[in-house]
């Protein structure tokens, strides 16, 4: 399992692996916003946390079709399906490796982008913390979409269409936790804990459904 984790992480770090592309996409999305809404720093600091979350969500979705595609093309997916280790664990490890390759860089990059959006220090910490807790859920949900579309000729867009509605709660509670940390009457802890619960819930449901879908589309 550890070997699989290291292998997937290495693959995602290599050229064409998508880890760097995700961060670049994140940067591009966030950089485009001030051109759209205008360079008003007050407005930007108000909507900044939400922009960072949306950017991270889109960037996390971008790389998802790679999760199983390469393994299917070179046949290693069939070997993973045949081995004795439960497919659930394999998918879970692959998701974690994918998250470490694409999700973690986003979180490390988020404070830097927060500076561009004129976000306060507390809010920056809150964005990083909620992203750290929330982005794994996006990967787990996305694994289902990636597994479903692995057999499709043009899966990339379809993954986003299927995954985005399910990722809405993650976005809602992530952003509301950040605003809870900044504004006084709104609490931080309840939405943050719900975000943790969502991630834990999808860490079970996502790999289960994804492994079932991979099995269904393999034979």
């Amino acid at each position: 399992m550890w070997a699989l984790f290291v292998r997937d992480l290495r693959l995602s770090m290599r050229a064409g692996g998508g880890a760097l592309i995700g961060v670049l996409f994140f940067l591009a999305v966030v950089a485009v916003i001030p051109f759209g809404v205008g360079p008003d720093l007050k407005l930007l600091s108000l909507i900044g946390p939400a922009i960072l979350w949306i950017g991270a969500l889109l960037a996390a979705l971008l790389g998802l079709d790679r999760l199983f595609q390469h393994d299917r093309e070179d046949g290693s997916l069939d070997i993973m399906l045949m081995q004795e280790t439960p497919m659930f664990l394999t998918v879970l490890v692959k998701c974690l490796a994918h998250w470490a390759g694409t999700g973690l860089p986003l979180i490390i990059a988020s404070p830097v982008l927060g500076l561009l959006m004129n976000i306060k220090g507390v809010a920056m910490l809150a964005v990083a913390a909620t992203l750290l807790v929330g982005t794994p859920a996006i990967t787990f949900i996305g694994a289902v979409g990636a597994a479903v579309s692995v057999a499709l000729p043009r899966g990339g867009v379809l993954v986003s269409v299927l995954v985005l509605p399910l990722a809405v709660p993650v976005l809602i509670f992530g952003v509301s936790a950040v605003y809870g940390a900044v504004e006084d009457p709104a609490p931080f802890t309840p939405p943050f804990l719900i975000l943790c619960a969502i991630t834990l819930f999808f860490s079970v449901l996502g790999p289960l459904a994804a492994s079932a879908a991979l099995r269904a589309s393999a034979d």
Partner: protein
Amino acid sequence: MIASIAAFLTGLANPTRFLTVAGRLMPWMIGVTALLFAVGLYLSFQAPEDYQQGMTVRIMFIHVPSAWLAMMCYTVMAIAAIGTLVWRHPLADVAAKAAAPIGAAFTFLALLTGSLWGKPMWGTWWVWDARLTSVFVLFLMYLGLIALNRAMDDPARSARVSAIIILVGYINIPIIKFSVEWWNTLHQPASVMRLDGPTIHPSLLYPLLVMALAFSMLFFTLHFAAMRNEIWRRRVASMRRQAARSARG
């Protein structure tokens, strides 16, 4: 009881038998639907105007049944998905595939009538409250499922894959149902299906119930018709393939 239902469902596994049963039932179902709609619409227009909402209260007779049906249709699809994955019932995947466009239509109707009612009552076409948002998410999921069904040409494979997506998406249904209780929404809380009995006045409740029955019958009629079409479509496709094969050989 359960054994006889199971035997009936197993009997329906033969598509030809299903086609015969559905063909015999279809005229009756159309008749009952038309009758229920005639009674329901008559009662709807006989119902007194609300002292606050005036005429617009009648929108509820379309809006509420559509919203119920939108959720029931997804539930039917989820049951069919279990049927596909667990029992490999050959008609379950036909049922799930045929229900998706119907569910999307009902969801759209609920959103549309709700927004038509919201403009004079709330002063806005749309608000991002929990109930409206979760129903909108349901609409997106229906569209995604239709897109998924269209993207795959092998029915057997697309059946199992979309069944998994349907079951994962089912978590949205309880969220829709309880969204008005969990969050403080602009959308009013449930007034018909409550543990302490309906809080809606009988003069409005009875037309609503008849309309709900009419919409349910409409759903079953459309669903049966769509299932028949899907079975015939698959037969035509396989006959075409056979013809092409024999023409080449």
